């Protein structure tokens, strides 16, 4: 894996690989996540996705991609710590599987560059029809998060727990904010972020680095570069005392319980392992005890938000079991803090993390996500480095990490019917 500076505030990471049928290309702006701009940035990529000067509408873009043997090019918006990444990810069949020695890399890179640099405009402004229709689509998409109750509950937990922090801002902003974005304000955002934003480029495939760098340099030659907006470091906060409980009611049959905790301390490797033992792996305490032994939940797992230092738990429960489930989840965490576990729980969790790290090598998408995460956090962790760190974690460090986990917010989505 290599990383080089192509232009001012533009970096290219190349991962040479022969084992995939397709090559993966990605171009992402990395900017601070904020209430004011999150919706703008998300809307912007969707508008840019509608047409370029050369391919001014969806049929023209669709035709271009189809003729590149079903190449894919899609907008992507992500949250990494307290930064937002927005741009496009593209992939095409690797040259070695194409008839007659055709080459797709340069053509697809050119198209990727056009999406940023030469969108189809009217009178020098983004097209009103594209802005209006994508604004409606984006607002609809944000509102449809409620269709998936599990995802909705997790979303509401973070929104409530981190209200007032960058981390509490939704990945693509909020629906009401998006609906208010005007053409002039989106146009202003485009003119501001395009020259200033950090641009991270990524390639994984069989082409040599020099060819890739050449293709990207040509495709992004028209990108203006003036001034900078740098990614921000992620801020940590202590947990609320006492923790808050938020309950919402919907017409559902199963309750969704989400719990948010904050971790004190900087021992990330220990926290990763602690989370895997708590609810991140199939050997975890939540899975084995709360789900399997007590049958309190259909699912119960936990996630460690490494960049922000949070642990969140998500569980599907019978609404009447709310108090028992909360109590039991706390009990499992306390057990970790007291060092109460069997050897296989620790080793199972460790092996599961190591397996996950090793397997990243087999997924171009997972490597891209890792590289982008590093760029957003301003860190230079590597897979071998993380692997060594996970191997070195001692039981004492896990216990310490568990003791530093403090509840901040409980969010419960419950059914309308009252419990008997």
């Amino acid at each position, binding site marked *: 894996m290599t990383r080089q500076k192509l232009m001012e505030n533009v970096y290219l990471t190349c991962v040479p690989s022969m084992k995939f049928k397709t090559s993966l290309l990605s171009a992402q702006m990395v900017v601070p996540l904020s209430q004011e701009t999150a919706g703008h940035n998300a809307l912007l990529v969707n508008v840019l996705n509608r047409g370029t000067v050369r391919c001014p509408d969806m049929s023209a873009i669709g035709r271009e991609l189809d003729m590149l043997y079903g190449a894919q090019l899609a907008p992507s918006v992500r949250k990494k710590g307290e930064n937002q990444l927005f741009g496009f990810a593209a992939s095409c069949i690797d040259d070695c*599987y194409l008839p007659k020695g055709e080459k797709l890399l340069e053509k697809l890179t050119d198209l990727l560059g056009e999406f940023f640099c030469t969108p189809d405009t009217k009178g020098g402004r983004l097209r009103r029809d594209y802005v209006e*229709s994508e604004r409606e689509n984006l607002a*609809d998409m944000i509102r449809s998060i*409620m269709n*998936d109750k599990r995802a909705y509950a997790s979303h509401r937990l973070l929104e409530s727990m981190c209200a007032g922090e960058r981390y509490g801002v939704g990945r693509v902003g909020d629906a009401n904010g998006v609906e208010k974005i005007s053409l002039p304000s989106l146009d202003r955002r485009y003119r501001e972020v395009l020259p200033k934003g950090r641009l991270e480029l990524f390639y994984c495939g069989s082409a040599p680095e020099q060819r890739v760098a050449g293709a990207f340099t040509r495709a992004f030659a028209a990108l203006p570069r003036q001034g900078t907006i740098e990614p921000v470091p992620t801020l940590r906060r202590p947990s609320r005392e006492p923790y808050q409980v938020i309950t919402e009611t919907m*017409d559902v049959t199963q309750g969704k319980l989400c719990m948010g905790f904050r971790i004190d301390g900087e021992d990330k490797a220990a926290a990763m392992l602690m989370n895997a033992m708590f609810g991140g792996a199939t050997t975890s305490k939540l899975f084995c005890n709360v*789900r399997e032994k007590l049958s309190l939940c*259909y699912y119960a797992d936990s996630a460690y938000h490494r960049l922000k230092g949070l642990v969140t738990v998500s569980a599907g429960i019978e609404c009447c079991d709310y108090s028992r489930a909360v109590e039991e989840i706390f009990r499992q965490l306390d057990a970790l803090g007291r060092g109460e576990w069997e050897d296989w729980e620790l080793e199972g969790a460790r092996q*599961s993390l190591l397996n996950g790290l090793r397997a990243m090598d087999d997924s171009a998408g997972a490597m891209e996500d890792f590289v982008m995460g590093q760029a957003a956090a301003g860190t230079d962790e590597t897979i071998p480095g993380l692997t060594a760190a996970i191997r070195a974690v001692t039981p004492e460090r896990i216990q310490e990490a568990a003791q530093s986990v403090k509840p901040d917010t409980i969010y419960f989505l419950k059914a309308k019917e009252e419990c008997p």
Partner: protein
Amino acid sequence: MSIVAYPRVGESVHRQTLSNGLEVITVSKPYHTKSYAFFAVRYGGMDLRFRVDGMWRDTPAGIAHYLEHKMFDMEEGSVMAEFAQRGASDNAYTSNAMTAYYFTSTSCFYENLRTLLRFVSIPYFTQESVDKERGIIAQEIQETEDDPDWRVYANLMECLYQNSPVRVPVTGSVESIRQITPQTLYECHGAFYTPSNMVLVCVGDVDPGRVAEEAETILPKEGGSAVLRDYGSEELLTPARHEIAQSMEVSMPMFLAGYKCRPQSGGSETLRQSIIGDMACDVLFGSSSPLYTRLYEEGAVNSSLGGNFDMLPGAEYVYVGGDAKDPRRIFNEITQQAQKLGREGIDEDFYQQIRRAAYGGMLRSLNSLENIAVSMAEGHFRGFDYFRFPEIFDTVSKADVEAFLRENISLDRAALSIIQPLH
């Protein structure tokens, strides 16, 4: 053992049929860190009525899925811990026509393989553990009741089919799973989990001879007899009913339309038909099709619009759906466009464009070890060789795709399922 190279897709495959009838397929991936093993049974949610020892048996809806949950129990405890301690991640799923158990690992492949072969072939159920699982599965069923994507599909299948067991959800219902006992689970395991009714697919940097050896050592020596299945009397091509609507907690209306297609006989024709069906979907409502782009540009649909061609034993259908403010209008537009294309023909340039994209899409799917394993297993059960798709592609013509649209995508074959917002 046979070794076949597939230069057009850059793969090579070892195949061996063991003396007990088990098919063992190994796809070599020398550059991958991860290995994947997939052990599948030709037994799924549809197989509710079958003949064993000369007698027809009726079993409760959801039993294949229930059995899948309970297979992870061994006399010495749950087998998941064994995988987990070696850092492997294991799981299983039950579809309409197949139950599959699998793991991925980056070390200790053969130890994990032995665990997989052992737990799937040795049933161990107690009254207590079977009773306990009922609560967990009932919660899983309840979760699907709250899931609009699931509901819109389940409602469609109920509309589309009259007799076929595809109209029954794979998980069964809270009521139907009450009838499941250790005894019924043992009987179903005995009838279907026989080597000749199963396939083992391994993908990764693994030794095909060693895989076959492990399977030979651990699995029963007897292959088992073929099971006769009853999927109900032959389906008419007209749906049971044309429309169904349900109100749920969703932000905007969503729909799924289905078109019943005439089932094929099997063999390599199955793969050909599947390619034709998928291309017909791309031509009709794929994201570069004239219909999709027009509806999107009008704001009538968003990027959620999509669908595909699905083939199940005795039941084949095209489905298409997404979010839309006026589902009935989208449904009518799609049906009319299909008839128009069937009548007037597909533009030659557009067809060539879709053909290229479809070929690239199939090749792309081989990036995933999981997709490779599933395609190999399905190919084995249905009698086709998935890696031959480039050759089959060469035989598909524009007229085939037009005929598919003309014959299958019409109002008399169709049903529409709608989920409306409550508020």
